[in-house]
């Protein structure tokens, strides 16, 4: 059986990749994708942890370890909503600035 730590390390790597993508990419859409990557990395953790707690039941019976898997759906829903709104905003930016290069979106500063 694959140990929990592997999942967690993978999740951490994915999350870091998301962060790096945000930092290094210039296209707004790509950056947005990086954020999605970060969220999905988190989802991976959730699932991994849910599985872990499923096999290691806790004393407090009111805790429902399966909830971890449910959370993933919530996160996905939220991510979808974010995507909808985000893309709308990106379009608005494109309309006013006619570019998707994030480095050129710097009217407001100092």
């Amino acid at each position, binding site marked *: 059986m694959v140990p929990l730590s592997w999942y967690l390390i993978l999740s951490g790597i994915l999350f870091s990749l998301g962060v790096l993508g945000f930092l290094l990419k210039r296209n707004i859409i790509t950056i947005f994708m990086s*954020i999605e990557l970060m969220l999905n990395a988190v989802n991976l953790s959730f699932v991994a942890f849910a599985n872990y707690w499923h096999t290691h039941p806790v004393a407090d019976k009111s805790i429902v370890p399966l909830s971890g898997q449910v*959370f993933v759906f919530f996160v996905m829903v939220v991510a979808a909503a974010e995507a909808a709104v*985000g893309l709308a905003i990106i379009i608005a*930016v494109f309309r006013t600035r006619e570019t998707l290069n994030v480095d050129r*979106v710097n009217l407001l500063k100092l």
Partner: protein
Amino acid sequence: MNPIQTVDYIRILPELVLTAFGIIIMMADPLLKPGASRKGLGLVALGGTIAAIAATFCQIAWSARDANFATPGWFGMVRVDSFAIFFHLLIPAISAVCILASLEYLDAQNIRSGEYYALILFGTVGMVLMSSAVELVLIFIALEISSISTYILAGYRRRNAGSAESAIKYFLLGSFATAFFLYGVALMFGATGSTSILKIGPALGSNPGLLAIAATALMIVGLGFKVAAAPFHIWTPDVYEGAPAPIVALMSTGPKAAAFAVLLRVLFATTSSDWLPLIWICAALSMTLGNFGALMQNNVKRMLAYSSIAHAGYLLVAFAASNEIGRSAAIFYTASYAAMNVGAFAVVSHFGAGGERYVSVDDYSGLGRRSPLLAFTFTIFMLSLIGIPATAGFLAKYYVFNAALSANAHPTALVWLTIIGLVNSAVASYYYLRLIVVMYMREPVIVEAPAPASGAMKLALVLAAIATIYLGVMPGRVLTYSDAGARDLLPTAAAAGSATPGSSTFPGPVATTPEK
């Protein structure tokens, strides 16, 4: 037994009411003629916020009758204790004033869409829910509800490049930070097997493991971003500058108050206080960066943005105090800051006129002559932001520093933090004073008189001003509420839940009934 009881609906009544009003507005909007003023919808939204406040009073009444009201409902996800009720009153009130300010603003900016109001209401739902949610994923969702609404609202001046930029910055960075928060939630889930704040505390004990510590750190990052605490404050000036002024009024106070509420709940969930040095540093950094950054600003919105960073810093001082007085002070501070800052941005939004033309400090020259009342109210807000006695800002600061000085843990460090804070507030007085100076001591550079404020705007200003003065002069009642809220926050009280009904009862009706 049906796990969901009637009382559970009462527990989310304000959210329900707000959502209902939001949906009504969304549905009504297409029925209105395009290009027509959406003032009517604004009034509906205003009604929604008032209804939400009324719903909160319903909760208060309920809590007086039902000792178990404060126990978590909805499968342990929502806990309506005095703490939550405080924010249930505060946040819709903020929204109400912002809506009042928006009524005039939207006409002035020629924005004709009803979703604006609906979005405010939905955002409010998120904020209100944040304050009563005790489950991390629910908090995440509530956070996203409020955030997504404000992302859109920030970009509402569609023809303005700055507004769009503000929105994209807010959106991208906000999502970025939320991802950190979420990662923290996941790790916390991993560490304890639960995402309920009420349960992770006892599960962790006083010596949490590495995973939990990392989780706390990540959540601090996410929430720190939302409250604009340094070093996560960096988005604030840009976003505030570009966003519509009434929305800035809202998002500099409402989500902030809610995020602080969450921060309070999360940080004090465990008896561990590993995060204290972090908060100390954040507080000192926020105050310093905020105040010094504001010194040289010429754009009033931007200046107030920096100021809001600084105020987040003052608020964090109360966190650093890490005692009940501190928690109470923090709660009180959110209310005080909301009163003065909403007022200040309301003035900015009115004075900015069409296209927010007049937002530089110089534009305010001679305002005391051109529009004495507007200048006078603005002065009240500025004085309050400086922290002059007899205003909300002073008392808020006073309680914060009082808390810091009465802390038992790390007294020396907190004395220093207090001194940093006090010196900062002296430095800060310079840039607030600058506005007063130009208003009263310089001759006007703009010849056209500012348009007379609409009734709604006047009402908004008067409400904010009264609140500012009231909190500064007669804060007694609000303080008893914040004290009660602070008491309910304690993990022990929360764990005991129904065992100590007195502490979880909102003191309002108890205090007021005999008078009536």
